[in-house]
Protein backbone atom coordinates (compact mmCIF):
# COMPACT_ATOMS: atom_id res chain seq x y z
CA UNK A 1 0.00 0.00 0.00
CA UNK A 2 1.34 3.45 -0.90
CA UNK A 3 1.48 6.23 1.75
CA UNK A 4 -1.36 8.02 -0.10
CA UNK A 5 -3.50 4.89 -0.05
CA UNK A 6 -2.70 4.50 3.63
CA UNK A 7 -3.81 8.04 4.43
CA UNK A 8 -6.99 7.63 2.36
CA UNK A 9 -7.78 4.34 4.08
CA UNK A 10 -7.25 5.96 7.46
CA UNK A 11 -9.57 8.85 6.58
CA UNK A 12 -12.21 6.42 5.36
CA UNK A 13 -12.01 4.43 8.61
CA UNK A 14 -12.47 7.60 10.64
CA UNK A 15 -15.49 8.55 8.54
CA UNK A 16 -17.02 5.14 9.22
CA UNK A 17 -16.28 5.38 12.94
CA UNK A 18 -17.96 8.78 13.19
CA UNK A 19 -20.85 7.66 10.95
CA UNK A 20 -21.28 4.58 13.11
CA UNK A 21 -21.64 6.73 16.23
CA UNK A 22 -24.20 9.00 14.55
CA UNK A 23 -26.12 6.07 13.03
CA UNK A 24 -26.30 4.31 16.38
CA UNK A 25 -27.62 7.45 18.09
CA UNK A 26 -30.18 8.13 15.33
CA UNK A 27 -31.37 4.52 15.24
CA UNK A 28 -31.67 4.29 19.05
CA UNK A 29 -33.59 7.54 19.25
CA UNK A 30 -35.91 6.66 16.36
CA UNK A 31 -36.56 3.16 17.73
CA UNK A 32 -37.50 4.62 21.10
CA UNK A 33 -39.81 7.03 19.29
CA UNK A 34 -41.38 4.18 17.29
CA UNK A 35 -42.04 2.26 20.51
CA UNK A 36 -43.60 5.32 22.15
CA UNK A 37 -45.83 6.02 19.14
CA UNK A 38 -46.97 2.40 18.97
CA UNK A 39 -47.80 2.40 22.68
CA UNK A 40 -49.80 5.64 22.32
CA UNK A 41 -51.71 4.13 19.41
CA UNK A 42 -52.54 1.04 21.46
CA UNK A 43 -53.82 3.20 24.33
CA UNK A 44 -56.03 5.13 21.90
CA UNK A 45 -57.39 1.88 20.49
CA UNK A 46 -58.13 0.47 23.95
CA UNK A 47 -60.03 3.64 24.88
CA UNK A 48 -62.34 3.22 21.89
CA UNK A 49 -63.07 -0.49 22.23
CA UNK A 50 -64.07 -2.73 19.34
CA UNK A 51 -64.56 0.11 16.85
CA UNK A 52 -60.80 0.38 16.38
CA UNK A 53 -59.89 -3.30 16.79
CA UNK A 54 -58.36 -3.46 13.28
CA UNK A 55 -56.00 -0.61 14.08
CA UNK A 56 -55.17 -2.31 17.37
CA UNK A 57 -53.76 -5.29 15.47
CA UNK A 58 -51.63 -2.94 13.37
CA UNK A 59 -50.35 -1.04 16.42
CA UNK A 60 -49.45 -4.31 18.14
CA UNK A 61 -47.58 -5.52 15.03
CA UNK A 62 -45.81 -2.16 14.83
CA UNK A 63 -44.62 -2.48 18.41
CA UNK A 64 -43.44 -6.06 17.95
CA UNK A 65 -41.51 -5.12 14.81
CA UNK A 66 -39.91 -2.24 16.71
CA UNK A 67 -38.60 -4.73 19.28
CA UNK A 68 -37.17 -6.88 16.47
CA UNK A 69 -35.48 -3.83 14.93
CA UNK A 70 -33.92 -2.98 18.26
CA UNK A 71 -32.60 -6.53 18.51
CA UNK A 72 -31.09 -6.32 14.99
CA UNK A 73 -29.57 -2.92 15.76
CA UNK A 74 -27.84 -4.33 18.85
CA UNK A 75 -25.95 -6.80 16.59
CA UNK A 76 -24.57 -3.84 14.62
CA UNK A 77 -22.94 -2.57 17.78
CA UNK A 78 -21.46 -5.98 18.55
CA UNK A 79 -19.61 -5.93 15.25
CA UNK A 80 -18.57 -2.32 14.96
CA UNK A 81 -16.29 -2.42 18.04
CA UNK A 82 -14.17 -5.35 16.68
CA UNK A 83 -13.98 -3.64 13.29
CA UNK A 84 -12.71 -0.40 14.85
CA UNK A 85 -10.25 -2.34 16.99
CA UNK A 86 -8.93 -4.26 13.96
CA UNK A 87 -8.54 -1.04 11.96
CA UNK A 88 -6.68 0.61 14.81
CA UNK A 89 -4.35 -2.39 15.13
CA UNK A 90 -3.57 -1.96 11.43
CA UNK A 91 -2.76 1.70 12.06
CA UNK A 92 -0.56 0.72 15.01
CA UNK A 93 1.40 -1.86 13.00
CA UNK A 94 1.75 0.41 9.99
CA UNK A 95 3.26 2.96 12.31
CA UNK A 96 5.92 0.46 13.35
CA UNK A 97 6.49 -0.47 9.73
CA UNK A 98 7.07 3.19 8.85
CA UNK A 99 9.84 3.30 11.46
CA UNK A 100 11.43 0.23 9.87
CA UNK A 101 11.18 1.83 6.43
CA UNK A 102 12.98 4.92 7.74
CA UNK A 103 15.78 2.80 9.15
CA UNK A 104 16.11 0.92 5.86
CA UNK A 105 16.11 4.10 3.80
CA UNK A 106 18.73 5.78 5.94
CA UNK A 107 20.95 2.70 6.14
CA UNK A 108 21.70 2.29 2.44
CA UNK A 109 22.14 -1.02 0.60
CA UNK A 110 24.62 -2.48 3.09
CA UNK A 111 22.19 -2.33 5.98
CA UNK A 112 20.42 -5.59 5.23
CA UNK A 113 23.73 -7.41 4.96
CA UNK A 114 24.84 -5.96 8.29
CA UNK A 115 21.52 -6.57 10.00
CA UNK A 116 19.76 -9.60 8.58
CA UNK A 117 17.11 -9.55 11.30
CA UNK A 118 15.74 -6.27 9.96
CA UNK A 119 14.34 -7.82 6.80
CA UNK A 120 12.87 -10.77 8.71
CA UNK A 121 11.18 -8.46 11.20
CA UNK A 122 9.80 -6.23 8.44
CA UNK A 123 8.39 -9.28 6.66
CA UNK A 124 6.78 -10.41 9.93
CA UNK A 125 5.11 -7.00 10.30
CA UNK A 126 3.93 -7.09 6.68
CA UNK A 127 2.40 -10.48 7.36
CA UNK A 128 0.75 -9.28 10.57
CA UNK A 129 -0.78 -6.31 8.74
CA UNK A 130 -2.06 -8.55 5.93
CA UNK A 131 -3.68 -10.86 8.51
CA UNK A 132 -5.31 -7.90 10.29
CA UNK A 133 -6.57 -6.53 6.99
CA UNK A 134 -8.15 -9.88 6.15
CA UNK A 135 -9.73 -9.98 9.61
CA UNK A 136 -11.08 -6.43 9.15
CA UNK A 137 -12.54 -7.37 5.74
CA UNK A 138 -14.25 -10.39 7.33
CA UNK A 139 -15.79 -8.27 10.11
CA UNK A 140 -16.87 -5.69 7.55
CA UNK A 141 -18.66 -8.33 5.46
CA UNK A 142 -20.42 -9.56 8.61
CA UNK A 143 -21.38 -6.01 9.53
CA UNK A 144 -22.82 -5.38 6.06
CA UNK A 145 -24.88 -8.54 6.43
CA UNK A 146 -26.23 -7.25 9.78
CA UNK A 147 -27.10 -3.94 8.11
CA UNK A 148 -28.90 -5.81 5.32
CA UNK A 149 -31.01 -7.70 7.90
CA UNK A 150 -31.78 -4.44 9.68
CA UNK A 151 -32.84 -2.85 6.38
CA UNK A 152 -35.20 -5.78 5.70
CA UNK A 153 -36.75 -5.23 9.12
CA UNK A 154 -37.22 -1.52 8.36
CA UNK A 155 -38.91 -2.37 5.06
CA UNK A 156 -41.33 -4.68 6.87
CA UNK A 157 -42.02 -1.91 9.35
CA UNK A 158 -42.79 0.43 6.45
CA UNK A 159 -45.32 -2.13 5.23
CA UNK A 160 -46.98 -2.14 8.69
CA UNK A 161 -47.14 1.67 8.56
CA UNK A 162 -48.94 1.49 5.20
CA UNK A 163 -51.42 -1.04 6.65
CA UNK A 164 -51.93 1.35 9.55
CA UNK A 165 -52.71 4.20 7.18
CA UNK A 166 -55.37 2.08 5.43
CA UNK A 167 -56.92 1.03 8.77
CA UNK A 168 -56.87 4.64 9.96
CA UNK A 169 -58.64 5.79 6.79
CA UNK A 170 -61.33 3.15 7.28
CA UNK A 171 -62.14 4.37 10.79
CA UNK A 172 -61.66 8.08 10.16
CA UNK A 173 -65.32 8.71 11.01
CA UNK A 174 -64.63 7.67 14.62
CA UNK A 175 -62.96 11.04 15.16
CA UNK A 176 -59.85 9.45 16.69
CA UNK A 177 -56.72 11.11 15.18
CA UNK A 178 -55.30 7.83 13.86
CA UNK A 179 -54.14 9.35 10.57
CA UNK A 180 -51.84 11.66 12.51
CA UNK A 181 -50.63 8.75 14.65
CA UNK A 182 -49.85 6.78 11.48
CA UNK A 183 -48.06 9.76 9.95
CA UNK A 184 -45.88 10.11 13.07
CA UNK A 185 -45.06 6.40 13.01
CA UNK A 186 -44.15 6.68 9.33
CA UNK A 187 -41.82 9.59 10.07
CA UNK A 188 -40.04 7.65 12.84
CA UNK A 189 -39.54 4.68 10.49
CA UNK A 190 -38.23 6.99 7.76
CA UNK A 191 -35.58 8.34 10.17
CA UNK A 192 -34.38 4.80 10.89
CA UNK A 193 -34.41 3.90 7.18
CA UNK A 194 -32.34 6.98 6.30
CA UNK A 195 -29.81 6.38 9.10
CA UNK A 196 -29.35 2.73 8.13
CA UNK A 197 -29.04 3.56 4.41
CA UNK A 198 -26.39 6.25 5.05
CA UNK A 199 -24.50 3.89 7.31
CA UNK A 200 -24.55 1.14 4.72
CA UNK A 201 -23.17 3.53 2.11
CA UNK A 202 -20.26 4.43 4.41
CA UNK A 203 -19.48 0.76 5.02
CA UNK A 204 -19.66 -0.09 1.32
CA UNK A 205 -17.29 2.76 0.51
CA UNK A 206 -14.85 1.40 3.10
CA UNK A 207 -15.20 -2.07 1.59
CA UNK A 208 -14.58 -0.75 -1.93
CA UNK A 209 -11.42 1.00 -0.81
CA UNK A 210 -10.06 -1.87 1.31
CA UNK A 211 -6.81 -3.30 0.09
Amino acid at each position, binding site marked *: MTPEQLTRQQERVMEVVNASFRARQDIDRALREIDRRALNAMVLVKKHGNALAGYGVVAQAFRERAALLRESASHLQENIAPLIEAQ*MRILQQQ*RLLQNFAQVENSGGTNLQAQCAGLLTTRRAWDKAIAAEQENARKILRQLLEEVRILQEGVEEQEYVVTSGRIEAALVEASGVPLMRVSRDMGEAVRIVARAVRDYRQQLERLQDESY
Partner: protein
Amino acid sequence: MKATKVFEAKDHRWWILYDQEESRVIDSNVYVMESQGQAFLLDPGGFEIFPQVFAALVEAVPPASIQGAFVSHQDPDIASSLPLWHACNPKIQWHIPALWEGFIRHYGALEAPLQDIPDAGGNTLIGGRRLEFIPAHYLHSSANFHVYDPEAKVLFTGDVGAALLPPGHSAWVDRRDVDGKSFAAHIEKARYFHQRWMPSNRAKDDWIERVRKLEIDYLCPQHGAIYSGPQVQRFLDWFATLPVGNGIA
Protein backbone atom coordinates in the same frame (compact mmCIF):
# COMPACT_ATOMS: atom_id res chain seq x y z
CA MET B 1 -12.29 -2.15 27.57
CA LYS B 2 -15.60 -0.74 28.73
CA ALA B 3 -17.00 2.78 28.73
CA THR B 4 -19.01 3.91 31.76
CA LYS B 5 -20.46 7.29 32.62
CA VAL B 6 -18.93 8.90 35.72
CA PHE B 7 -20.96 12.12 35.76
CA GLU B 8 -23.83 13.53 33.72
CA ALA B 9 -25.74 16.80 33.91
CA LYS B 10 -27.49 17.80 30.67
CA ASP B 11 -24.82 18.20 27.98
CA HIS B 12 -21.93 17.79 30.40
CA ARG B 13 -20.52 14.30 30.90
CA TRP B 14 -17.47 12.44 32.17
CA TRP B 15 -16.66 8.92 31.03
CA ILE B 16 -14.14 6.34 32.14
CA LEU B 17 -12.73 3.75 29.72
CA TYR B 18 -11.41 0.96 31.92
CA ASP B 19 -10.55 -2.72 32.46
CA GLN B 20 -8.23 -3.30 29.51
CA GLU B 21 -7.91 -6.77 28.00
CA GLU B 22 -4.11 -6.73 27.57
CA SER B 23 -2.51 -7.87 30.83
CA ARG B 24 1.17 -7.62 29.82
CA VAL B 25 1.08 -3.84 30.23
CA ILE B 26 -0.16 -2.01 33.33
CA ASP B 27 -3.94 -1.66 33.43
CA SER B 28 -4.82 1.98 32.69
CA ASN B 29 -7.94 4.11 32.78
CA VAL B 30 -8.64 6.73 30.15
CA TYR B 31 -11.12 9.54 30.87
CA VAL B 32 -13.22 11.63 28.53
CA MET B 33 -14.92 14.90 29.43
CA GLU B 34 -17.72 15.96 27.10
CA SER B 35 -19.38 19.37 27.01
CA GLN B 36 -21.86 20.61 24.42
CA GLY B 37 -20.69 18.08 21.85
CA GLN B 38 -16.98 18.77 22.35
CA ALA B 39 -14.77 16.15 23.96
CA PHE B 40 -11.48 16.19 25.87
CA LEU B 41 -9.29 13.13 26.51
CA LEU B 42 -7.31 12.70 29.72
CA ASP B 43 -4.19 10.52 29.75
CA PRO B 44 -5.02 8.71 26.48
CA GLY B 45 -2.93 5.65 27.28
CA GLY B 46 -0.12 3.62 25.83
CA PHE B 47 0.68 2.53 22.27
CA GLU B 48 -0.17 -1.12 22.99
CA ILE B 49 -3.69 -0.54 24.27
CA PHE B 50 -4.63 2.14 21.72
CA PRO B 51 -6.90 -0.11 19.56
CA GLN B 52 -9.06 -1.14 22.51
CA VAL B 53 -9.15 2.37 24.00
CA PHE B 54 -10.26 3.74 20.66
CA ALA B 55 -12.98 1.09 20.23
CA ALA B 56 -14.28 1.80 23.76
CA LEU B 57 -14.18 5.55 23.16
CA VAL B 58 -16.63 5.18 20.28
CA GLU B 59 -19.15 3.85 22.84
CA ALA B 60 -18.98 7.24 24.52
CA VAL B 61 -18.29 10.01 21.99
CA PRO B 62 -17.66 10.34 18.24
CA PRO B 63 -13.88 10.65 17.69
CA ALA B 64 -14.41 13.73 15.51
CA SER B 65 -15.70 15.57 18.60
CA ILE B 66 -12.32 15.39 20.38
CA GLN B 67 -10.95 18.93 20.54
CA GLY B 68 -8.20 18.48 23.04
CA ALA B 69 -6.26 16.02 25.12
CA PHE B 70 -4.27 16.18 28.32
CA VAL B 71 -1.11 14.35 29.26
CA SER B 72 -0.40 14.44 33.00
CA HIS B 73 3.27 13.48 32.61
CA GLN B 74 5.73 11.78 30.26
CA ASP B 75 5.27 8.08 31.06
CA PRO B 76 4.61 5.59 28.22
CA ASP B 77 1.33 4.31 29.73
CA ILE B 78 0.09 7.91 29.52
CA ALA B 79 1.34 9.30 26.26
CA SER B 80 2.93 6.74 23.92
CA SER B 81 -0.34 6.47 21.94
CA LEU B 82 -0.10 10.19 21.08
CA PRO B 83 1.12 9.67 17.47
CA LEU B 84 -1.73 7.23 16.78
CA TRP B 85 -4.36 9.66 18.08
CA HIS B 86 -2.68 12.37 16.04
CA ALA B 87 -2.92 10.17 12.93
CA CYS B 88 -6.65 9.67 13.59
CA ASN B 89 -7.43 13.30 14.39
CA PRO B 90 -4.63 15.83 13.67
CA LYS B 91 -6.80 18.68 15.03
CA ILE B 92 -6.50 17.51 18.64
CA GLN B 93 -4.68 20.13 20.75
CA TRP B 94 -2.40 18.39 23.25
CA HIS B 95 -1.92 19.97 26.69
CA ILE B 96 1.29 18.67 28.20
CA PRO B 97 3.71 19.71 30.98
CA ALA B 98 6.12 22.22 29.39
CA LEU B 99 9.06 20.44 30.99
CA TRP B 100 8.33 17.23 29.09
CA GLU B 101 7.68 18.56 25.58
CA GLY B 102 10.98 17.45 24.06
CA PHE B 103 10.63 14.05 25.72
CA ILE B 104 7.05 13.42 24.68
CA ARG B 105 7.90 14.21 21.05
CA HIS B 106 10.21 11.19 21.21
CA TYR B 107 7.07 9.02 20.98
CA GLY B 108 6.89 9.98 17.32
CA ALA B 109 4.77 13.10 17.43
CA LEU B 110 6.97 15.70 15.78
CA GLU B 111 4.04 17.35 14.01
CA ALA B 112 1.41 17.16 16.77
CA PRO B 113 0.16 20.52 18.15
CA LEU B 114 1.46 20.51 21.71
CA GLN B 115 0.39 23.26 24.14
CA ASP B 116 2.82 23.61 27.03
CA ILE B 117 1.40 23.87 30.55
CA PRO B 118 3.72 26.01 32.67
CA ASP B 119 4.80 24.77 36.10
CA ALA B 120 2.23 27.05 37.80
CA GLY B 121 -0.66 25.36 35.96
CA GLY B 122 -3.36 26.78 33.71
CA ASN B 123 -6.74 26.03 32.24
CA THR B 124 -8.61 25.36 29.02
CA LEU B 125 -12.17 25.67 27.74
CA ILE B 126 -14.05 22.72 26.29
CA GLY B 127 -17.59 23.25 25.06
CA GLY B 128 -17.81 26.43 27.12
CA ARG B 129 -16.69 24.72 30.32
CA ARG B 130 -13.43 25.40 32.12
CA LEU B 131 -10.98 22.70 33.09
CA GLU B 132 -8.16 23.60 35.47
CA PHE B 133 -4.66 22.11 35.21
CA ILE B 134 -3.55 21.78 38.81
CA PRO B 135 0.15 21.30 39.62
CA ALA B 136 0.95 17.93 41.18
CA HIS B 137 4.71 18.00 40.72
CA TYR B 138 6.65 15.01 42.05
CA LEU B 139 3.43 12.97 42.28
CA HIS B 140 5.08 11.08 40.85
CA SER B 141 6.73 12.83 37.92
CA SER B 142 8.83 15.96 38.41
CA ALA B 143 6.45 17.93 36.16
CA ASN B 144 2.98 16.55 36.75
CA PHE B 145 -0.55 17.97 36.55
CA HIS B 146 -4.05 16.95 37.57
CA VAL B 147 -7.30 18.25 36.05
CA TYR B 148 -10.21 19.74 37.98
CA ASP B 149 -13.70 20.31 36.63
CA PRO B 150 -15.31 22.70 39.15
CA GLU B 151 -18.82 22.23 37.75
CA ALA B 152 -18.82 18.42 37.77
CA LYS B 153 -16.60 18.36 40.89
CA VAL B 154 -14.39 15.81 39.20
CA LEU B 155 -10.68 15.71 39.99
CA PHE B 156 -8.55 13.63 37.64
CA THR B 157 -5.51 12.67 39.68
CA GLY B 158 -3.25 10.68 37.33
CA ASP B 159 -1.20 8.25 39.43
CA VAL B 160 -2.48 9.56 42.76
CA GLY B 161 -5.15 7.15 44.01
CA ALA B 162 -3.90 4.44 41.67
CA ALA B 163 -4.43 0.81 42.64
CA LEU B 164 -3.28 -2.36 40.91
CA LEU B 165 -6.52 -4.30 40.39
CA PRO B 166 -7.14 -7.66 38.70
CA PRO B 167 -8.87 -8.00 35.29
CA GLY B 168 -12.64 -7.57 35.43
CA HIS B 169 -12.42 -4.91 38.14
CA SER B 170 -15.15 -2.34 38.77
CA ALA B 171 -14.84 1.28 37.71
CA TRP B 172 -15.66 2.33 41.28
CA VAL B 173 -14.37 1.81 44.78
CA ASP B 174 -17.54 0.39 46.43
CA ARG B 175 -20.07 3.23 46.56
CA ARG B 176 -22.25 1.64 49.27
CA ASP B 177 -19.37 1.22 51.66
CA VAL B 178 -20.94 2.60 54.86
CA ASP B 179 -18.36 1.34 57.34
CA GLY B 180 -15.26 1.77 55.16
CA LYS B 181 -14.47 -1.97 54.98
CA SER B 182 -14.40 -2.04 51.18
CA PHE B 183 -12.17 1.02 51.18
CA ALA B 184 -9.77 -0.69 53.58
CA ALA B 185 -9.55 -3.71 51.27
CA HIS B 186 -9.12 -1.55 48.17
CA ILE B 187 -6.45 0.70 49.61
CA GLU B 188 -4.17 -2.26 50.29
CA LYS B 189 -3.91 -2.59 46.49
CA ALA B 190 -2.85 1.07 46.35
CA ARG B 191 -0.37 1.10 49.20
CA TYR B 192 2.80 -0.16 47.48
CA PHE B 193 2.08 1.90 44.38
CA HIS B 194 2.05 5.12 46.40
CA GLN B 195 4.94 4.24 48.70
CA ARG B 196 7.26 3.26 45.85
CA TRP B 197 6.24 5.50 42.93
CA MET B 198 5.65 8.72 44.87
CA PRO B 199 9.04 10.19 45.78
CA SER B 200 8.32 13.15 48.03
CA ASN B 201 6.45 13.51 51.34
CA ARG B 202 6.74 17.29 51.03
CA ALA B 203 5.11 17.25 47.59
CA LYS B 204 2.40 14.93 48.87
CA ASP B 205 1.56 17.16 51.89
CA ASP B 206 1.52 20.27 49.71
CA TRP B 207 -0.84 18.59 47.23
CA ILE B 208 -3.21 17.35 49.95
CA GLU B 209 -3.41 20.82 51.47
CA ARG B 210 -4.37 22.36 48.11
CA VAL B 211 -6.75 19.60 47.09
CA ARG B 212 -8.65 19.68 50.40
CA LYS B 213 -9.81 23.19 49.44
CA LEU B 214 -11.57 21.85 46.34
CA GLU B 215 -15.08 20.44 46.26
CA ILE B 216 -14.60 16.89 44.98
CA ASP B 217 -17.35 14.36 44.30
CA TYR B 218 -15.20 12.08 42.12
CA LEU B 219 -11.47 11.47 42.49
CA CYS B 220 -10.41 9.71 39.30
CA PRO B 221 -7.04 7.95 39.11
CA GLN B 222 -5.38 6.63 35.95
CA HIS B 223 -5.06 3.10 37.37
CA GLY B 224 -7.61 1.26 39.49
CA ALA B 225 -11.01 2.62 40.48
CA ILE B 226 -12.80 5.93 41.13
CA TYR B 227 -13.27 7.25 44.67
CA SER B 228 -16.66 8.93 45.07
CA GLY B 229 -18.57 10.57 47.91
CA PRO B 230 -17.11 9.70 51.33
CA GLN B 231 -14.39 7.55 49.72
CA VAL B 232 -12.69 10.78 48.53
CA GLN B 233 -12.17 11.98 52.10
CA ARG B 234 -11.10 8.50 53.20
CA PHE B 235 -8.48 8.45 50.47
CA LEU B 236 -7.10 11.91 51.34
CA ASP B 237 -6.91 10.99 55.03
CA TRP B 238 -5.14 7.72 54.20
CA PHE B 239 -2.68 9.40 51.82
CA ALA B 240 -1.92 12.13 54.39
CA THR B 241 -0.59 9.58 56.86
CA LEU B 242 1.26 7.39 54.35
CA PRO B 243 5.06 7.82 54.24
CA VAL B 244 6.19 7.71 50.59
CA GLY B 245 9.52 7.44 48.79
CA ASN B 246 10.41 4.07 50.31
CA GLY B 247 12.87 3.14 47.52
CA ILE B 248 15.66 4.47 49.72
CA ALA B 249 16.21 2.16 52.63
